[in-house]
């Protein structure tokens, strides 16, 4: 079996292309973390997170600055969320976090409202001011009940 330079080159290119596709699927699409821009973890507690899922977006003024790391229950039975945000951001400690919905029925994401304090949030700090997710079915429920009450009063 002798070497065939052209064939070997083609096989090499094929293997590289295949591995490139695997890497693209793993890192870019699959979200496997690699070096990338450094992230800092922040924590926030919420009473209600609605349908928020890990890897959902974290935005400031609609611009993506990070993603949700993990979601678990803390000792007080509130949802404790880890936010992995761009470490280059300088966020004041009175920054607040709220859970929003993209469109009427779209994905949940976390929006940060940047505060004005001089002290900055350090990696691992907790965001104290939070606004829980608005559950559409609860809003509708309240509307229906308030409508029924009004009907009784008349």
């Amino acid at each position, binding site marked *: *079996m002798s070497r065939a330079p052209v064939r070997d080159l083609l096989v090499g290119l094929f293997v590289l*292309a*295949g591995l490139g*596709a*695997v890497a693209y699927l793993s890192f870019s699409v699959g979200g496997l973390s690699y070096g990338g821009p450094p992230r800092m973890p922040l924590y926030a507690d919420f009473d209600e997170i609605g349908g928020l899922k890990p890897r959902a*977006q974290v935005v400031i003024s609609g611009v993506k600055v990070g993603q949700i790391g993990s979601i678990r229950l803390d000792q007080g039975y509130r949802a404790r969320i880890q936010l992995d945000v761009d470490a280059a951001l300088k966020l004041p400690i009175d920054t607040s976090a709220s859970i929003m919905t993209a*469109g*009427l029925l779209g994905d949940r994401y976390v929006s940060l409202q940047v505060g004005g304090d001089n002290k900055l949030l350090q990696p691992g700090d907790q965001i104290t001011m939070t606004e829980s997710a608005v559950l559409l079915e609860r809003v509708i429920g309240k509307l229906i009940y308030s409508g029924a009450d009004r009907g009784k009063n008349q």
Partner: protein
Amino acid sequence: MTAIGDLGFAAVRFVTDLGGLAHFAAQIGRAALAPPLRVRLFLDELFKLGVLSLVIICVCGLAVGMVLSLQGYNTLVRFGAEQSLGAVVGLSLIRELGPVLTALLATGRAGSATTAEIGTMVATEQLDALRMMSVDPIDLVATPRALAMTAVMPLLSALFIVCGLFGGYLVGVGLMGVDAGSYMSSLESAVDFHDDVLGSLLKALIFGVLVGLVATYRGHTTVPTSAGVAAATTSTVVVASVSILVFDYFITALWGV
């Protein structure tokens, strides 16, 4: 009475076939680990099974991604959820269509050719000639082909998926006017490495083993006539395709990918 006899005969033949396949697989496993390692032959097969399948895989991936995007859009737009098009296209391609369609295409394109090649070697007594020279035909002929099929399948599947994602993006964003940012972000937030991408590669790997084994086994057990080669080639395509689809269900049911 003859009908029951036929059924019994078919059952015995099926079990014998299965046992033969398992024995054959064990022999290939041993030949793959024991020296000499046939690296050159393996590369030859990588070229034949991989590089030469590249065009068909990319074209089919593109077409499947495009039609998936079109169908998905038409369904999602009724619910006003066309922002999730990326997630629909990505998850269907990665979890299901990529590995399965790649395996079916590779069966038709490369598996049948492998069986026909080995079958012709059997019919023209080339394998007997090898045995005469005390060269094990499983080591020299079957092992490189089966191994190359296994190695090639995850790579082809990944390429198929990437082409499909590109095709889906073209139709969804270019033609139907879905926002490019929401397409990519719904794709990226829906697809998880451990749940989806690893499972997809595992599926492709298992299909590669399956197609490689069936193709080489059918070639080796060919009845040495021209009709026998034809029957073996047909049988490879049928058996491999059916078992890919059946295995696909069980892999999904067992491991949830």
